[in-house]
């Protein structure tokens, strides 16, 4: 069956299909906002003309947008007596520290649809107040009267002892709507975050079900026997039926494709540690990934913290559309305001009248006005020069100097972001490779790598549609987390804790038709020094205590072996086989063929270079070139500064390294 990866983004829906000869076919259609599945199905038809069944792997921003816009199902929230306002109080912090009229984002759950239950557990999970059968009946009747589309149940300490939630769950499920129990959705300590996650799961259930079922029905109507798989926040895929069981795990489905692809490509190339740089129009996403399954909790959708597992994305406000201005102190500042897609940068010719990062790139000769998106989108150099000249005059510098400063500031902001996910977390960027994708990352990547002393920059194939490519590569996956909060148990005791989670995952993937022998298992422990906040994640195995102290010293700079070690949580990941999209090609070793020459500015110097431009699509594996040079491709541009060289490697990646 033909496999397609389709990624619905804010502006474009990208579809990628792998051909028999190992090449890829690409379709890029405008996202249909009112009915996202239309662009998805159009993209399918564009790539597969015959009405044959396909396997569609889909990355969707539907759940993210539903949470951000509040277009959610009608939820009744059930919680322990005395805590009806649990979701309303939250952690009592406000969104912005400095605001005259502060706001505090909380789940939008009206008090009229909250039901309190008389029951109570203590911190050890022991029953303090018993949940009586009559109380269960009262609660179910009350919930039914409120006509929910879904029910969320979160009781205090339920992750320690699920008995009361189970009792309520059994009774509530007779109402015939989805019932989400906190110990199932997020069996972890911290009542507000666990309740929020359970609430989000319930609130998404009706709307995500409607959207994905429609897509599946329409897909199967025209292509009988087709299969639909959905990318989840943890970087693995699940059959649509499974994905719908707990839709909260689709909260960051969109960006997971790119990160998942970077990881699987890194595995092939032998890069064990990497940072990703995905520069878009309004913002830039960075992440630290290691091939030993990175993940993070909580993950954030807007201001809501969800105890769901996701890839560790950090977003900063500088993107191609970020605007430059003179701030109140008379300094040139870039962002966080953005010109977005409309009007966009001045050079888009849509009446944008504020200078942006993209305008600065264009004026510095780093973009070709007539070759942007394959020439389909001409850029207006005159408009870029006009806005940058105005800005330059205001700041007291030349037009070109203003453009160059904008680019330096944007790079510094991204550098801070990369430092945050690496050095601030005790990780050494010198050991990592920078994977740059998205359209504009390649314009900054070499300087970022220089400043962080990173080994190399990798610009993967199809850099502009890399997330869609990642969907094809992602494995089927189940991941589970369970809070433990005990002094570190012995190896044997831990095995008993892992066993039920492993069983659950194996059974689920075997249910998707994957053979037991093909399953990969990964068990991890989250440890901390007694009473500390800093949690270290280690692979399960012998000598945990010693490994903990070594890691603690590496991360935090000191070692306290007098400290007792606590097991905070365990995590289990079961993977089906991934479908590698990366094929080793035969490499020649020859100089690349230049396409043209253009004057281009390369930073850190007042002068521009008359430098060679290359077209990525016409390079062959093994072709190499020396900076200063520019490599342009359909939807991305990469700069190779003086002192750097670039080579298309056997994996069809453009690899930038410093000259020896």
């Amino acid at each position, binding site marked *: 069956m033909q496999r397609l990866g389709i990624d619905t983004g804010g502006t474009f829906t990208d579809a990628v299909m792998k051909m028999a000869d190992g090449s890829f076919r690409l379709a890029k259609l405008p996202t249909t906002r009112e009915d996202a599945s239309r662009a998805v199905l159009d993209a399918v038809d564009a790539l597969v003309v015959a009405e044959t069944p396909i396997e569609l792997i889909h990355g969707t921003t539907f759940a993210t947008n539903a949470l951000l816009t509040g277009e959610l199902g009608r939820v009744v929230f059930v919680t322990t007596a005395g805590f009806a306002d649990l979701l309303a109080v939250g952690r009592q912090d406000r969104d912005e520290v400095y605001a005259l*009229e502060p706001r505090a984002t909380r789940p939008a759950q009206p008090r009229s649809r909250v039901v309190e239950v008389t029951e109570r557990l203590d911190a050890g999970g022991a029953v303090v107040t018993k949940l009586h059968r009559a109380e269960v009946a009262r609660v179910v009747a009350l919930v039914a009267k409120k006509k929910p589309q879904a029910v969320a149940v979160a009781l205090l300490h339920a992750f320690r002892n699920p008995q009361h939630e189970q009792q309520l769950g059994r009774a509530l499920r007779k109402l015939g709507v989805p019932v989400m129990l906190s110990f199932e959705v997020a069996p972890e300590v911290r009542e507000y975050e666990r309740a929020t996650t359970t609430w989000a799961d319930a609130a998404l259930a009706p709307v995500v079900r409607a959207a994905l079922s429609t897509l599946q029905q329409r897909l199967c109507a025209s292509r009988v026997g087709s299969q639909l798989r959905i990318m989840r926040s943890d970087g693995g895929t699940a059959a649509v039926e499974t994905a719908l069981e707990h839709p909260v795990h689709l909260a960051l489905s969109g960006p997971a494709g790119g990160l998942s692809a970077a990881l699987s490509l890194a595995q092939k190339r032998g890069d064990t540690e990497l940072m990703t740089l995905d520069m878009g129009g309004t913002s830039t996403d960075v992440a630290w990934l290691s091939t030993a399954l990175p993940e993070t909790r909580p993950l954030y959708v807007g201001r809501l913290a969800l105890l769901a597992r996701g890839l560790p994305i950090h977003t900063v406000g500088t993107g191609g559309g970020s605007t430059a201005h003179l701030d*109140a102190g008379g300094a040139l500042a*870039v962002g966080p305001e953005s010109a977005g897609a409309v009007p966009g940068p001045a050079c888009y010719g849509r009446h944008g009248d504020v200078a942006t990062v993209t305008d600065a790139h264009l004026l510095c000769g780093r973009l070709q006005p007539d070759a942007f998106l394959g020439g389909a989108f001409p850029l207006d150099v005159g408009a870029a020069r006009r806005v940058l000249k105005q800005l330059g005059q205001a700041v007291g510098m030349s037009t070109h100097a203003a453009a160059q400063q904008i680019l330096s500031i944007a790079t*510094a902001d991204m550098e801070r972001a990369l430092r945050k996910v690496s050095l*601030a977390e005790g990780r050494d960027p010198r050991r990592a490779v920078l994977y740059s994708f998205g359209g504009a990352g390649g314009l900054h990547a070499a300087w970022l790598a220089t400043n962080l002393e990173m080994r190399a920059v990798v610009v993967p194939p199809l850099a502009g549609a890399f997330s869609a490519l990642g969907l094809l590569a992602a494995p089927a996956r189940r991941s589970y987390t369970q809070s433990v909060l005990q002094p570190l148990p012995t190896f044997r005791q831990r095995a008993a804790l892992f066993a039920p989670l492993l069983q659950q995952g194996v059974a689920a993937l075997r249910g998707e038709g994957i053979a037991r022998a093909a399953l990969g298992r990964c068990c991890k422990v989250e440890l901390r020094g007694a009473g500390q906040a800093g949690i270290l994640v280690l692979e399960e195995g012998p000598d945990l205590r010693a490994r903990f102290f070594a890691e603690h010293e590496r991360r935090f700079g000191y070692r306290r072996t007098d400290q007792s070690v606590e097991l905070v949580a365990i995590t289990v990941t079961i993977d089906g086989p991934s479908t590698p999209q990366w094929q080793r090609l035969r490499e020649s070793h020859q100089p690349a063929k230049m396409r043209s020459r253009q004057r281009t500015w390369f930073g850190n110097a007042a002068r521009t270079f008359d430098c060679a431009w290359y077209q990525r699509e016409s390079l062959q594996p093994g072709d190499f070139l020396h900076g200063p040079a520019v490599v342009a491709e359909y939807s991305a541009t990469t700069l190779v500064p003086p002192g750097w060289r670039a080579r298309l490697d056997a994996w069809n990646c453009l690899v930038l390294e410093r000259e020896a």
Partner: protein
Amino acid sequence: MNPTQRDPALFVFRHLFASVTDEMGAALQHSAVSPNIKERLDFSCALLDAAGRLAAHAAFIPVHLGSAHSTVPAVLKELDPGPGDVVVLNDPFRGGTHLNDVTVLAPLFHAGKRCGFLLNRAHHADIGGAEPGSMSGAADIFGEGLLIPPLLLRAGGKDVAAVWQLFAANVRDPAAARGDLQAQLAALHRGQIRFDDLLARYGVAALTRAMASLFEHGAAFTRTMLASWPRHAVEVHDFLDGVDSPRLQLRLQVTAGRLILDFSGSAAQVPGSWNTHRAVTTSAVFYLLQAIGGGHLPETSGTLEAVDLRLPEGSIVGACFPAGVALGNVETSQRIVDLLLAAMRQLMPGKFPAASHGSMNNLLFGGKRADGTPFVFYETHGGGAGAGPQGDGASAVQTHMTNTRNTPIEILEEELPVRVKRLALRRGSGGRGEFRGGDGLLKEIEFLEPVRLTLAATRRNSQAAGAGGGEPGKSGVDSVTIAGKTKRLRSAEAIDLPSGGSIKIATPGGGGYTKDQSSN
């Protein structure tokens, strides 16, 4: 360099300096032991130039904002720290804030010359003194806990054992305190490594120039902001809860590009812990300017250059040794913001919100677990935010000088012998108006072991003012129940509760807002 010509690369350095303090902050949070630092982020990290002026700052709560720049000058009067030295201090009158905030400071050297400082300041849950948590029950600074003048904690790269021993001997939970202090040192170390990277990359001259340019930029930023303010003077006053209701008075005027804040007429410093000194009053001013500027003000020493802060010596807003100041940080600082905001409302009617709940509702208690191990706990509570021209005030939220998160109930009950009975919005406590003030918070905690407890809070005998004719929020009201008998709890009064006793905290609501100016 021409002082009006900004270094064009200013924001490049601003981002790079910020990554030094980012990294210190992450290191401190991850390795600290006590919940107040690791969960509630009650700390700050700063990068300063050789003169001690603030160049970059990572602060998660505003009360730390305006104090870092006063530390280095105070230290240099007494010590001349060299390479490998680390200074520790907490004396509010010699570079500190209040005793719980323990500050560590390390000089930065290049080619044998001092070119800057790094510091971090973290709120220790206990620093000795009369009561667990060190924030109540004292007549003056001596009763508030261990007073640490600037001392070397490390000398030439080696721990000064005597200072560590003295420190550990004076606090109720020495293991936690040592762990937190160690985490503070680890954070300094990380900052030093990162600053050395910048030195290697740009050289000392470029960094020094960039810092100077940042101060000028901060000053210009404030001047631009002030240029649009009306020129007439406004006068406001308010009172602090407590014995004799100490008066706070402020006259605000912008003249010749300078913001004059004259607190003459404010009460003399009082017995007890309610006084604030210059560093903390400065933080409150910094906070309000930052809130007006939407968070865009550069956090550098330059930003306050255009501000004349006139504080009467020995007053409740400009306290002198040996005044107690523990609660001045957390309560009086909120009242100073209320006062500043009231002045702004008068200066530019219709632009500023009503008063917020005005307290941090500090709960402190300590005791022993069933197994005999001691515990000390500190937490602050949110209340109603003032309504404003944009709409209703937020409910049960931290306002103004703090933004710390609460301790999850499941963590609280895991670590301490307590049971939370109720957590709720205090409905109807926000002031009415076209837009409603936010509601306060209700929290009820039962103690499973005997504890000694203090609730230090204000707006118990007064209310958060409404704006433009909006009604004030309701006062807070707190009580304890012992053996079925409930009695009103007085603020800052330490009491003993037996096992089974409970406390009920009801925090104040925010003021309401209406555009009707006739009743103003």
